[in-house]
């Protein structure tokens, strides 16, 4: 017995908790035979653990109350996650626009007045669960009339059914110096794209498609006369282009 390692209090706990390897365990057992006070401590520890189990184990058998939901309740989760995603995307767009700020060429007028606000508006409202639009698609006629009036130019909401997207609705937005309109579309999986349009004193009166992207948000934009258009979505370039090609002839026949 004198050759054995001394038994520490920690090891007595480990013995009571059944955490010792078999060799050490039998050494401690031997020790306990000759140390009644240590043996009493072990008994007390084991009784204590048993009482804790008696006290709290009934919880294990209880039915899970309705207040506990996993996965968390859909709306709740959707709102939070969407808001989080929106901030991430917003940060990306912001960083992007700051990076581009120095090149204050006239060409950048499109960026500051059309692309950037369109991307911002897309990020903010496409993540919105409760109020993604101001006027819903079931009042499309009213929506189009109202936005045409506010933008002082006739506009319409193109049909994206061919691309698998349906109109959710639209809203009026402030832009840098004028009003802008946003139409929102959604596919069957809930993925959203937005079409942003506004009038402007553009240098170019007619442009081809141009593409701009940062992080998740891609934007196809073009000018036709006074009107500038920007189609934004978290899609890859080819997919977004497919939609732009569907939209364009409807707006610029």
């Amino acid at each position, binding site marked *: 017995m004198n050759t054995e390692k001394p038994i520490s209090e920690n090891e007595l706990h480990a013995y009571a908790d059944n955490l010792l390897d078999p060799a050490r365990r039998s050494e401690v057992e031997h020790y306990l035979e000759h140390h009644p006070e240590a043996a009493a401590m072990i008994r007390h520890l084991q009784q204590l653990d048993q009482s804790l189990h008696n006290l709290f184990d009934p*919880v294990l058998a209880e039915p899970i109350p309705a207040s506990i939901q996993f996965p*968390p309740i859909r709306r709740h989760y959707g709102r939070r996650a969407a808001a989080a995603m929106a901030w991430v995307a917003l940060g990306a767009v912001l960083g992007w626009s700051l990076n581009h700020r120095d090149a204050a060429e006239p060409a950048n007028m499109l960026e500051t007045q059309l692309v950037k606000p369109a991307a911002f508006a897309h990020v903010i409202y496409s993540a919105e669960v409760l109020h993604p639009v101001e006027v819903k698609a079931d009042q499309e006629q009213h929506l189009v009339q109202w936005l045409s009036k506010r933008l002082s130019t006739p506009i319409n909401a193109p049909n994206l059914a061919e691309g698998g997207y349906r109109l959710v609705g639209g809203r009026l937005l402030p832009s840098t110096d004028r009003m802008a309109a946003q139409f929102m579309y959604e596919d069957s999986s809930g993925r959203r794209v937005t079409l942003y349009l506004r009038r402007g004193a553009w240098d170019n009166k007619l442009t081809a498609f141009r593409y701009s992207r940062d992080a998740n948000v891609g934007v196809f934009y073009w000018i036709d006369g006074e009107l500038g258009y920007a189609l934004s979505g978290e899609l890859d370039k080819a997919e977004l282009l497919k939609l732009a090609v569907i939209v364009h002839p409807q707006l610029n026949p």
Partner: protein
Amino acid sequence: MGRSDHRRGLAPRQGVNQLHHLEQLIVEQIPRLRRYARALIRGDHSRADDLVQDCLERAWTRWHLWRRDSDMRAWLFTIMHNLYVNDLRRYRDGPSFVSLDSEHDNIALDGTRTEESLVLDDLHAAIGTLSPEQREVVLLVSLEGMRYEQVAEVLAIPLGTVMSRLSRGRQQLRTLLSEARGPRMRRVK
């Protein structure tokens, strides 16, 4: 729930199966999380369940941080610990007297309380006298049966600190319980 609800980046296509598996792993731990929360926050069941729900929500938004081969229980208990210590005020105990809805009221047929239920009441009260730090260690070891190294990891403290909190916490419970077994004085509050 439909997979389409995971749009906006949380569940990339290839992650759907993994996510489903993960859901199961987490759901399996809910009873244990509830038991731990109930022991941590005594006297107020709804507050304890709030802690569980908060933990689940955080796990849900951070599942990508879970390493596939690591211990799900340890991960969830780590999240719960962080929530608990960051907001002790919110999750503090309910009234410190024996709660009316305590589930251990083994009332004997003649209307008296059994000796066992009296011991459990004493223990319930005694746990409340431990510091939150001691309480966590004692519960993770005694109730959850975690290895000491795992407790150290979950609580982000050194092994030596685990051992000293365990030793002091258990000692205090033993002392209080043996006192309580002397002349019975119901300590209501």
